[in-house]
């Protein structure tokens, strides 16, 4: 069917004004103000006065910031790697199940994913505590002499971040994995490949882009964790997110908090961009 005049559309053009106004006013403007605060002059003990100086950015060169950055990146990288390694087979297996099984598993994953970090932190510190935790179980079956606490520690923090990141990793992988044609794997099996060989030789290479993308997204996701480092880790395990809030609220140093925030945003944006590039080359799915 051809139209001589431009066909009437279902929605008028001005409909975009309202979301544009809201997102501009409440997302772009705050970001702009944050940029300007990051170069403002800090007034000791008070807030800040308008100005233009790089002082807050120059603090990035201090050992303090270097350590914070190394801790944040290291912990998140480890958590993201563990999450993706566990989540990938999980997702592949899940995608081969019936719809009702998939729906039920997705309900559990979404429920866990939506849980507040404070609840996850509380639950895990209870699970790892001395009075109510797995220490009791280990003691009861004779693995250790007396129940002990496993938190706060790096192990507890990593467990928490994996708890947070695992459902997210599955959901990120779910769409590309479920688009994988099951006949490709069947073909490999018919040609005599073992299940493991079909998995590592066919499924993994086909999903390379999706895996890279998921790894980066989980990394950014765990990088944003704010309460877990405080609830499950020691002060040495505080991440960039914790320090940003700490500087903004308790040290009353908004310019430095804003500068760290801008830095974190640039890192995250670059990574998310990389992830969407990686997700694009999805192979012959």
């Amino acid at each position, binding site marked *: 069917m051809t139209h001589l005049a431009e066909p009437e559309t279902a929605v008028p053009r001005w409909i975009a004004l309202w979301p544009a106004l809201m997102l501009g006013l409440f997302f772009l403007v705050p970001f702009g103000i944050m940029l300007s605060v990051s170069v403002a002059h800090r007034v000791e003990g008070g807030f800040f006065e308008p100005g233009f100086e790089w002082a807050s950015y120059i603090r990035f060169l201090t050992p303090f910031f270097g350590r914070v950055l190394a801790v944040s990146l290291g912990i998140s990288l480890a958590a993201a790697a563990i999450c993706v390694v566990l989540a990938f087979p999980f997702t592949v297996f899940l995608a081969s199940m019936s719809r009702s099984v998939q729906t039920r598993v997705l309900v559990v994953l979404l429920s866990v994913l*939506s849980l507040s970090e404070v609840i*996850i932190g509380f639950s895990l510190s209870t699970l790892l505590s001395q009075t109510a935790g797995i220490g009791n179980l280990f003691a009861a079956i004779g693995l250790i002499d007396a129940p002990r606490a496993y938190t706060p520690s790096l192990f507890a923090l990593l467990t928490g971040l994996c708890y947070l990141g695992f459902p997210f990793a599955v959901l990120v992988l779910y769409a590309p994995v479920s688009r994988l044609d099951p006949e490709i794997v069947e073909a490999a099996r018919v040609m005599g490949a073992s299940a493991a060989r079909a998995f590592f030789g066919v499924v993994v290479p086909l999903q390379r882009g999706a895996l890279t993308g998921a790894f980066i997204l989980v990394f950014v996701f765990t990088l944003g964790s704010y309460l877990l480092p405080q609830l499950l880790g020691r002060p040495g395990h505080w991440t960039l997110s914790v320090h940003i809030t700490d500087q903004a609220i308790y040290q009353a140093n908004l310019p430095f908090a804003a500068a760290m925030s801008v830095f974190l945003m640039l890192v995250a944006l670059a990574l998310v961009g990389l992830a969407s590039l990686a997700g694009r080359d999805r192979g012959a799915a």
Partner: protein
Amino acid sequence: MTRGLKLAYICVLLALLLAPLIVVTGVSLNGAQSLRFPPQDLSLKWYGALFHDREWLVPLMNSLIIASCAAALAVAIAAPLALYAWERGGLVARLLTGLGLAPFALPPVISALGFMIFWMTVGGYGQIWATIVSHGVFLVTLPLVTISLGLKATDRALIEAARVMGADRMTVLRTVIGPLLLPYVVSGYAFAFVLSLNEYIIAYMVAGFTVETLPIKIFNALRYGYTPILGVVSVIFAALAALVFGLIGRFGNLPRLMGAERVRDE
């Protein structure tokens, strides 16, 4: 690998995810003010305490008000945006969609600090409506994604048919597109509602010292020691999330909503 082994792997990981929640459920049933697992002298008294103690009731009400209003705002922003992007495409649509997806893709502390400085500058810092607006904008992503999915699944021929029969724009929107989109709007609202209920850092940085939400209250209470009431709140939150997503799973198509294209119906 056999189906049994695959199922076993899935079940083991799900059990690990559920383990902390099971312990917390047990802890919430303690009679005394202590965290014991297995619980001692079973009692439901802490469940009653949550709904009678003003100290917990106020944050609960704050959380519910913020979540219901913020989710409505998120839908109100996302729906016209999704419609516009679906109908027009082009640079403006792509920029706006990117803007709608951005807050959620970035570490939330960035948005939180942005909102905090913004409300300090324009006034509103420490007010409940500032938290509502901040949450609403932050959570636009969720209804935006679900409504866009719904529009993608909409058959344009239906709209064409309605138009040929003489329906004007508003009538098409009201009688064809609206009802088709309703399930996606509802699930978008539900996603945003649950996430707002659980959100900590934005609520904390925008109005944490004056408008206590439930997650903020829990974190503050943790500093003074653990009580079974924390278990109660965790159980209720987990149950609420399971109920909401369970309903979406029951009445909607959760695998499709999560992006699956081929799922066996059995």
